[in-house]
Structure formats: C-alpha cells, structure tokens
C-alpha cells in the first residue's frame, strides 16, 4: 500500500504542476464560463415566459445557449481531458528510463499502474467538481435561482457519471501508453479511437441499419422493418461511450426527458405529452439511466483491467 500511496502522490503532483494540465484547465474553465454565461443571460430573459418551467437551475447545464450546453461540452471534449492525462503515463517513464528504477524498488508492480490510474481519476474529479461549482455559483449570481435538494442530488449523479465517462478515456489512454512505446504514437492512437467511437460509430450504425432493414419513404415499408431498423441503429450506437453518456446524463440533468426507448406517437400526442408532462422523480430518472451508467462503468473497468494485465506480463528492461 505504501508504494501505491507514494507513486499516487507523485503522479498527482506531476499532474498539477505540468503545463499541460494548466493549459487544459484554463481552456476548459474558459469555455465553461462562456457557455454558462450565455445560458444564464438567455435564461434570465426568457424565464418569465416559461411559466411552467421546472428545475430552472439544472437548465444552466442542459440548456443550449448560443453554442452548446455544458453537458454537451463535457460529452464532446471531456474525453480529451482523460486522454491528455493518460496517453503517456507508462511510455514516458520508459523513454526516460525511470520505469525500471521504479519497479526495482520494493513495491508491487501493480502499484505503479494503479497509482497512475487513481491519480488521473483524482485529477479528473477535482477538475470537474471545480467546473461544476463555478458554473453553479455563476448561475446563482446571475439568475438568482436557488437550487433545491433535488437539483443538487441530480447534479451529484451527473457529476459521478461524468467522472466515470472521463475515467473510461483515461483508462483507454493508459492502455495505449502501455501498448505503444512511442509517445506520439499512443497520443495519435488515442485521438483516432476517440474520433472513431464518438463520431464515426453513429454514422456507421445508421449505414448498417439501413443496409440490414432498408426503409424507403417512397415505398410503403412495413412497420416491423422500421422498428427493427431503429432498434438495430440504437443498439449499435450504444457502442459509443459518448452516446452512452448522452443517454445517461440526459434523464438526470433534464427531468422532463424520458427514456429514449422507441415509441411511436402522432403529432397530437407529442403536443399533449409536452404540455402535460410532469418531471420524473429522482428515483425514476435513476432507473432510466442505470443501464447506461452500468455499461459505462463496465467499459472503464475492462479498459483498466486490460492495462493491468498487460503491465504485469510485460517485460520491463528500461
């Protein structure tokens, strides 16, 4: 345990003193300021019109101002934080020839990789917490809306899901830092996988679904085919952590949204449901997001477990 703690402490120190971290943090803080400011101004002007609005405080995070919402921002660029914190975790030590020195000390070998992962998670946690708190404080000052207990509870769950999401990318980056000896290669590989999983999978899912169950608007396609098409598309999309994160956070941060499970409704029903919909309780929202959060945590653990095993069997000579 001593080894884990000592390496963890050093890694955390390295993270917080590196320029990389400072630049990244400044960038993210800046963007969150801008988004939350936009949203807050927007909300303040329109709040009176939205007489039936529930949870105005959470709208600080979920409403898309002029550009994008905070939630969308974390979904899009959060992965970069994870990747930047992990892509050179092990191979930097290799190229500086310090890894062999580390494992020649009386510590368990897994302490090194565990400590690096935990230090990354701790950094992510601190980063996200400060951003969320800053936005919340900002919103309070501008909007003058006091959050209720439920808002705070939802925000905490959102925070937890976000930490899991970013940790997945951290785990992936650490895995690449083990597999590739070259730092530039592992950085490139991480970014490639990020783009693939975040942006390409959605497109590919649509293409595959179209090929398997073609839906033609000019011809009369059977209802069954349409349903199968949509189901397949959704199933494939869930391979993307970003889609999972979207699903998981949407119900948490926006109580009005329900599961995106397939159901058909005519225009009249849609108007009705948007008019007379009541927000879900926290418990119900949790039920909706639970499967997605589970998959997300599962993916993170698999990533880390693979890194763990690879590190333990890999030979360390330098």
């Amino acid at each position: 345990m001593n080894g884990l703690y000592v390496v963890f402490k050093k890694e955390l120190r390295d993270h917080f003193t590196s320029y990389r971290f400072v630049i990244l943090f400044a960038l993210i803080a800046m963007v969150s300021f801008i988004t939350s400011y936009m949203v807050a101004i927007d909300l303040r002007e329109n709040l009176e019109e939205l007489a039936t609005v529930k949870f105005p405080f959470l709208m600080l995070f979920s409403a898309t101002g002029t550009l994008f919402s905070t939630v969308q921002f974390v979904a899009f660029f959060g992965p970069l934080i994870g990747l930047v914190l992990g892509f050179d975790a092990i191979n930097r030590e290799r190229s500086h020839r310090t890894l062999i020195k580390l494992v020649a000390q009386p510590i368990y070998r897994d302490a090194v990789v565990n400590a690096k992962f935990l230090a990354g998670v701790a950094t992510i946690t601190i980063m996200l917490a400060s951003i969320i708190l800053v936005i919340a404080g900002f919103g309070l000052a501008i909007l003058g809306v006091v959050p209720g207990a439920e808002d705070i509870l939802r925000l905490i769950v959102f925070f937890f899901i976000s930490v899991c999401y970013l940790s997945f990318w951290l785990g992936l980056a650490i895995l690449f830092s083990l597999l590739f000896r070259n730092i530039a290669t592992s950085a490139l590989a991480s970014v490639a996988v990020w783009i693939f999983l975040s942006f390409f999978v959605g497109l590919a899912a649509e293409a595959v679904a179209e090929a398997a169950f073609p839906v033609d608007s000019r011809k009369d396609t059977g209802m069954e085919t349409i349903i199968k098409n949509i189901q397949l598309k959704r199933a494939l999309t869930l391979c993307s952590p970003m889609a999972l994160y979207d699903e998981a956070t949407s119900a948490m941060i926006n109580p009005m949204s329900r599961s995106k499970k397939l159901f058909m409704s005519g225009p009249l029903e849609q108007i009705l449901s948007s008019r007379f919909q009541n927000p879900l309780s926290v418990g119900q929202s949790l039920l909706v997001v639970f499967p997605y959060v589970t998959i997300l945590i599962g993916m993170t653990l698999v990533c880390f477990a693979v890194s763990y095993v690879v590190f333990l069997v890999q030979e360390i000579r330098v």
Partner: protein
Amino acid sequence: MTRNSIIETKDLTKRYGRNTVVKPLTFSVEESEIFGFLGPNGAGKTTTLLMLLGLTSPSGGTARVGGLDPLRDSLQVKQLVGYLPENVGFYGDLTAHESLSFMSELNAIPENDSRRRISKILDEVGLVEIESKKVSEFSRGMKQRLGIAEVLIKEPRILFLDEPTLGLDPDGARRLIDLVRNLNRDRGMTVLISSHNLGHVQQIADSVGIMMGGEMVARGTMQELAGDIDGAGGKQYPLEEIYMKYFREV
C-alpha cells in the same frame, strides 16, 4: 575457507522464443566480494541481473539471492538489492534532494531516518552543494553519482551495478570506482559490477565471470584466470588478455 554464498544460481535459463539469451547458468557470488561481470554486448549480463532481481522470470532453473527466491519473495529481494540500471533515468523536474526522498519514501524509510540518510549519502557521493539543483541540469557524472545515491538510500546488502562507468570521463569513472571500493570495504557490501571497461573491473573486482553468447565461459579470481592462460599462474596478466583469449575462442 568457506564463505557464505549470497547469490546462487542453478541452471538459470532465459529464452525468448527460440532464442536462448542465457544458457543454463550456474554460479555463485560470495558475501562481501566484488564480482566483475564481463562480456560483450548482448552476452546476457543484464538479463541475468534482471532475473536475479525478479524483474524477469527465468525460463528455467532457480536463483537464490540472500537465501530468497527472487520471484516468490520479490519484495524482500528488492529490499536487499540496490540495482543501478545501465543509463539510469531521472525525473528531470525533481532536485537531487527530492529524488532521494522519493526513493526513500518508496522504500518506506521513516521520515527522520530518511533525512539523516539523505544528508549522509549526499555527502558521500559529493553532491551536497547541488542538492537543490534540478536533475535535468546535471552532468552525466553527477547523474551517475545521484543514481548510486538513490540505490544506497535503502542501505542494501547487495549492489547490482550495470555499466556504471559507461560514458563517464576518466576522473568521474575513478571517483565512482573509489566509491564502490569504499562501500565494499567499509560496509561489507557485496557488489556485482557489469562492465565493458576491463581496466575498471580489474581495479576493484575480487573475482570475475566472463559471459559470452549467454554462457559463462570463465569464472574465478584474477589469479586463477591468469593461471589459465599459461598454465603456470603467478604471473600477473592484465584482464584484457584473459578476456581476449576467451573472446577469440568463442
């Protein structure tokens, strides 16, 4: 005269695929001796050291370091052995003092004990004046001495030095050799020193082992090996001649 063997191997072997890097190797090192580990690049010296440390698992055979199995009791063995790898690397943004205290934390040395040891060791390796300078500004000789200091912080019984004089200027190399000699004399430390520089090994080694192509082709004290050359012994041969004799044979 039977002294305790502190390192013993029996048929220690390492294969990578079909390539046998260390052929069944059986040798021992006595306590408190300086053992020179010689041989050309790729002869299997570093691999042998790594197997003795438990950092690489052998393909066959056994090793005992201080009576312990390096694979099973790897933590105790690493407590016993200080290993200075070839071309050791450092965290450039730490100072010499910080590097040493990081190492002592990894070795779970208590705080006040650690402070005493660090100042003593800094003095011993002659880095006191630059203890708060960042390692990235160090010269090669200074780095190598810091490397030794990092190894000594755990007060090991055995030292593994892999090419410690590589790339040092003559003065730096001499200081390092003197340091090793003092450690051996004053603290009775067992030292395994691998080197290409035969002159340096000859200066301090009590006995040497010559590795060629994964095999230990010769093992003995300087006198014994010199005797092998002309069959009579007694005459002092420089190590270089002994080495070249085996080199030509293989």
